[in-house]
């Protein structure tokens, strides 16, 4: 095959991956605390063409390859829900949850209470406070979570004071880009990047952080991807036609 075809194919392969990234973003347009992904491409220079027949000494061929997907860590919009167990984080922080695989981080603050009275995620993982899981008693009412993350309930005997049940652990990371998506709206951090307490985050009770996927951007990217894909296909087609024509014409031996 000719170099042009190989270059075209490299682009088509990366476009397919980008389409998968777009599809995942659009599928998670309504997922609380979801962070969109972006594809990064880079040029890959091949010093000489693979196809020896067409080798020109001073013209390296450049291919495209997808280098990675970048997590868009921008704040998603906050939606008021009025439910006391919904918390959104305004800022760069993450909630810490305890999963069977270890500590994980999430921005999805749609929380519940377990049968044991502990604050858990929708999947039943404990939400960790500064001193471990946060537990409520049977008679607790009026759960309040302030912007520092202090969880308190009403004192039944004295309505002017609150009983503190715990303090939500809100952490941030030096290089949040290195977090890895684990599914279930959770992230895991590498061992050499320990979480540190977030100083720039505020906890908002009664609100949820919606997905930060921007529908118009995703639709535009989708159109761009499918059009580029078709364009490359045209290019490959004309390369093929060229090849075909040259073979036919060169093989056309005069019969006279």
């Amino acid at each position, binding site marked *: 095959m000719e170099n042009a075809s190989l270059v075209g194919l490299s682009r088509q392969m990366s476009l397919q991956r980008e389409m998968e990234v777009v599809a995942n973003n659009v599928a998670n347009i309504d997922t609380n605390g979801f962070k969109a992904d972006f594809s990064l491409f880079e040029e890959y220079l091949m010093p000489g063409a693979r196809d020896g027949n067409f080798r020109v000494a001073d013209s390296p061929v450049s291919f495209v390859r997808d280098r990675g997907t970048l997590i868009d860590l921008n704040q998603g919009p906050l939606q008021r829900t009025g439910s006391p167990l919904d918390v959104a984080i305004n800022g760069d922080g993450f909630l810490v949850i305890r999963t069977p695989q270890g500590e994980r981080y999430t921005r999805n603050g749609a929380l519940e209470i377990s049968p044991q009275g502990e604050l858990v995620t929708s*999947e039943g993982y404990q939400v960790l406070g500064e001193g471990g899981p946060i537990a409520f008693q049977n008679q607790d009412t009026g759960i309040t979570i302030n912007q520092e993350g202090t969880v308190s309930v009403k004192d039944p005997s004295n309505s002017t004071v609150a009983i503190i049940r715990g303090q939500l652990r809100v952490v941030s990371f030096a290089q949040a880009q290195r977090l890895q998506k684990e599914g279930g709206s959770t992230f895991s951090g590498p061992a050499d990047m320990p979480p540190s307490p977030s100083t720039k985050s505020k906890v908002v009770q009664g609100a949820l952080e919606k997905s930060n996927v921007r529908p118009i951007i995703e639709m535009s990217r989708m159109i761009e991807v499918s059009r580029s894909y078709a364009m490359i296909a045209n290019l490959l087609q004309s390369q093929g036609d060229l090849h075909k024509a040259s073979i036919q014409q060169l093989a056309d031996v005069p019969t006279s």
Partner: protein
Amino acid sequence: MLALYTAASGMAAQALAVQVISNNIANLSTTGYKRQRAEFQDLLYDHVRQVGTQSSNQGNILPVGIELGLGVKTVGTPRLMTQGNLSSTSNSLDLAVQGDGFFKILMPDGSFGYTRDGSFNLDAQGRIVTANGNVVQPGITVPPTASSITINQQGQVSVTIPGTTTPSVLGQINLTRFINEAGLQAIGDNLLVETPASGSPQDGLPMQNGYGNIQQGNLEQSNVDAVVEMTNLITAQRSYEMNSKVITATDQMLQTNNNMHT
């Protein structure tokens, strides 16, 4: 291409969201109904190129990897147990709970159901029953001669018997709380039943230890907010459409491949 299945998972999730929204809207004026919402999470990721691996022997580390997500899943449809508005009916057996707690109902099979719907009546034996004829716990029988039933905020039921001047106390309506109210299971007829997720029922007296108070002559309306539901419906419909567009675009890409001729 995986994008097809990823987008299909998005369409399925939005279809479910519309299902939940339509049930909320259908129950806009159901007494004691608590609205639900669909909650989604992203599915697992295909880590094509692991972030943080070494890109050279000199210890350079990949700052970003390639992570391809495989779509979305529904994780639950929790019920939001916020207080609904009270509407005055001036019917003496219409009760509303302001605050936490459910009425406990004895069901025909002997188990207990829990409800916030306090539109009660008297049956032929004078017992306080729900609209379906199930007895409110603990059972209270009102004598046929009694008039003017009064139920105070603490749940004490008293009536006036003709020929007497002081009202006589018939009994006490209790409330039941659960540590995780969202873990109760709905069985229809405005009834919820206990599950392993809800924790065990805690019976108690109204207005004590965090239990709500009882408002006679009122009914708790559904906590569905029509405006919120309509906005959610629009969002869900548009998201559904967008996911179908992704399927179309992916399909076009595959079609492009098929149309190449040799």
